[in-house]
């Protein structure tokens, strides 16, 4: 049962350290593509979106937590740029597929531990 339950593009705002969760969100992917070109302040990033600055700031926070961004301070401003090293990790495209099965099997194991033979 291979491709059931692809994760939906939900825009959860909780902080996740799972890099694949981080890039599953379209807004966050758009942010990554912006900062791939040049270092940008949160304000400049937010100007590219209709969402509130606060929303964008949360997305940046998540990307930062996942080490997808490099942060540099220039005077008062903080600049964010893509951390290409981390993107390389994502390049191992098989990992999410393996993890999908791992999650299912973990669940199976947990459920069956409650059953008696």
């Amino acid at each position, binding site marked *: 049962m291979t491709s059931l339950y692809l994760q939906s593009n939900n825009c959860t705002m909780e902080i996740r350290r799972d890099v694949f969760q981080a890039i599953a969100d379209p807004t966050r*992917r758009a942010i990554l593509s912006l900062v791939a070109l040049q270092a940008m302040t949160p304000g400049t990033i937010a100007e590219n979106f209709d969402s509130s600055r606060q929303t964008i700031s949360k997305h940046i926070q998540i990307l930062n937590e996942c080490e997808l961004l490099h942060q540099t301070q220039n005077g008062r401003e903080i600049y964010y740029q893509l951390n290409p090293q981390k993107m390389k990790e994502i390049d191992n495209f098989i990992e999410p597929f393996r993890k999908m099965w791992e999650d*299912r099997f973990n669940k199976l194991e947990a459920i069956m531990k409650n059953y008696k033979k």
Partner: protein
Amino acid sequence: MERKTKLTAEENKHDILITREFDLPLELLFKAYEESEIVAQWMGTKVLKLENKKHGGWQFETSDPSGNVVFRANGVIHDFVPNEKIIRTFEMENSPFPAQLEFLEFEKITDDSSKLTMHIVYKSVELRNEMLKSPFAQGINMAHNRLEEIVKNLK
């Protein structure tokens, strides 16, 4: 946590191998595949049909929280030997992917542990790769193309 689930996908081949060792007796592991209510729990899907016998059929259906069906898959059970093996096909409905063939082998390791080996055969190398990428591709669209180039340049 250590990686208990291993996935092998050799280049230019149209199959994959998934193995997993469970801290469960063989009988319990197999039961998780045999009983509809349990399958429904760990696969997170509704089991519409599960006929565990030669020439039997199965059908799963998944809905989103508002009740819309987001996924439906079906297949035929080719062989079913309790605590030993299941051979079946898998086909996602309303998708460009054709049926795939799945060989599931269940083995006892000790009285309290067991192993599952899933060998999945796809129609072509391309389709296999598409399928492998699907959870990943979900997270990738045009925005990624640019990123992909950056990643490539790192190699």
